[in-house]
């Protein structure tokens, strides 16, 4: 028995001559959480729409548990739960009515609807909100109802497009925990432009940039990519640059405000220790020594750059 739940092959979408997504390939296994990472306008939402059958791809195929979504949309869509960018809520319905509608339309048996609604509300922290109109809920709660309607029929694949948007920090923490939990029994695809979010909840990550996949792999690999070759050093009484450059492995020293940015050769080890020792010995007044962590943008630049070189 195969455990692949989502199989996207050469997924391409063009609007006229403008190609938004080109040749995106990936597989997702049961129980995995896959993060789709990319800056705004990278083609994340377009990919999500194609995966859920809301948009027909120009080329390529999507298979959900082996069922082609274009050839057999009914069967494939029954296996998906989808939270689009804007939570799709009927404003005139109460939370209970909305979730019951979602359950019925996704084929939950009539006598199990109530149970499914209760479970979904509990998982998303909506238990006290059942009788409220969707229209009157705050953005955060609307987002939760959006997630609840996506998971109510226990789909094989849950697709969440920026699930933590508009939530406050506590809600974000809850939702992230929920997503991790979902990963246990369902497969989750999650799109975001927040790197820490991916690191926290995802098993695998795909970075998409200008419609192309520039990185695909486990979180660990991404962390390796993020690891920088620079240190930020704060010194009260900085010596001449030459004395820093004389330390083993140091390649470049640049001033960055009050701090010094020290770049070391690739693979060089013990640079931080050497700097600390030298600082103590020379009385430089060391007060900060941190790895200069690459920002998301740096990772993007790094990855897209690598792509061009290849």
């Amino acid at each position: 028995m195969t455990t692949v739940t989502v199989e996207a092959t050469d997924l391409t979408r063009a609007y006229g001559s403008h190609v938004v997504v080109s040749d995106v390939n990936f597989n997702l296994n049961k129980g995995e959480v896959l993060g789709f990472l990319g800056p705004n306008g990278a083609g994340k939402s377009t990919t999500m729409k194609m995966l859920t059958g809301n948009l027909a791809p120009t080329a390529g195929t999507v298979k959900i548990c082996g069922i082609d979504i274009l050839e057999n949309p009914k069967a494939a869509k029954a296996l998906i739960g989808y939270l689009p960018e804007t939570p799709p809520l009927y404003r005139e319905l109460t939370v209970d009515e909305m979730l019951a509608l979602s359950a019925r339309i996704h084929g939950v048996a009539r006598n199990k609807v109530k149970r499914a609604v209760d479970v979904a509300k509990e998982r998303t922290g909506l238990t006290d909100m059942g009788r409220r109109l969707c229209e009157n809920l705050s953005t955060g709660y609307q987002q939760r109802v959006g997630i609840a309607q996506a998971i109510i029929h226990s789909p094989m694949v849950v697709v969440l497009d920026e699930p933590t948007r508009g939530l406050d920090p506590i809600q974000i923490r809850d939702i992230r925990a929920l997503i991790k939990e979902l990963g246990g029994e369902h497969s989750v695809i999650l799109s975001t432009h927040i790197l820490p979010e991916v690191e926290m909840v995802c098993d695998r990550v795909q970075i998409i940039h200008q419609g192309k996949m520039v990185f695909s792999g486990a979180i660990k690999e991404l962390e390796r990519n993020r690891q920088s070759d620079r240190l930020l050093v704060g010194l009260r009484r900085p010596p001449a640059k030459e004395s820093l450059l004389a330390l083993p492995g140091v390649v470049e020293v640049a001033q960055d405000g009050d701090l010094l940015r020290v770049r070391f050769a690739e693979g060089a080890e013990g640079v931080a220790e050497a700097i600390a020792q030298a600082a103590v010995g020379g009385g430089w007044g060391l007060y900060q020594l941190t790895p200069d962590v690459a920002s998301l943008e740096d990772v993007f630049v790094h990855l897209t750059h690598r792509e061009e070189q290849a």
Partner: protein
Amino acid sequence: MKMILTIAGKELRSMFSSPMAWVILALLQLLLALFFTSSVGQYFEAMQGSMLPEQRIGFTAFVMPGVYGVAVLVLMTAVPLLTMRQIAEERKNHTLVFLFSSPASLFEIVLGKFVGLVAFISVVTLMLFAMTLSMNVATDLDLGHLLLCAFGLWLMAASFASLGLFMSSLTQQPIIAAILSFIALLALFIIDKFSVDPESVLNYLSLMRHFEPMAGGELNTTDIAYFALFITTFLVLTVRRLDADRLRG
């Protein structure tokens, strides 16, 4: 089938959770009741003037075509107000995605919405039918004729609904959908006035030309076929339009 009924039920619930449906029902009933009472008065006046037996016509034949004719005109303005929200507003509020990503086919979505509208129309028709039927206490109504009038009204309103649904699928703005459907319906009402030739195809296209025989107590398969074709055409066009959404994005 289950899917269609689920969607129809949701539409019906939505319609009755806004004041629109209630206002339409109440105003319609008031307007038609007033018209009905005055028609009854007119009947007595006319019959007092006509002493000869051949001048006399039955109550049903005299009153009902008028009452149901007015009901058709009122529904021509009311139904676009109900249909305008169906797809346009869902598109605007991003809820169409909900239906699109559910395991319901486009055909089921469109038919579900249509069935919901027809259910509302049936309520309207039944209420009017009950009102006109109350006259049976005072006189012997021609029940067959009365039923045919109601059936004609129901078919007309269902046709309005299918056209309105299509217009709603064309735009994001409910108001534009309402205006479009109203203009289209008006055009289909008066289209036969543009033909000089009695055999002109324009006569066949006119909605009113197919309602009038029914209101007059005459049931033709041509008219039934016309309404069936009319409804099917616009429902299929709506499905096509939604499919284009998915293809073109």
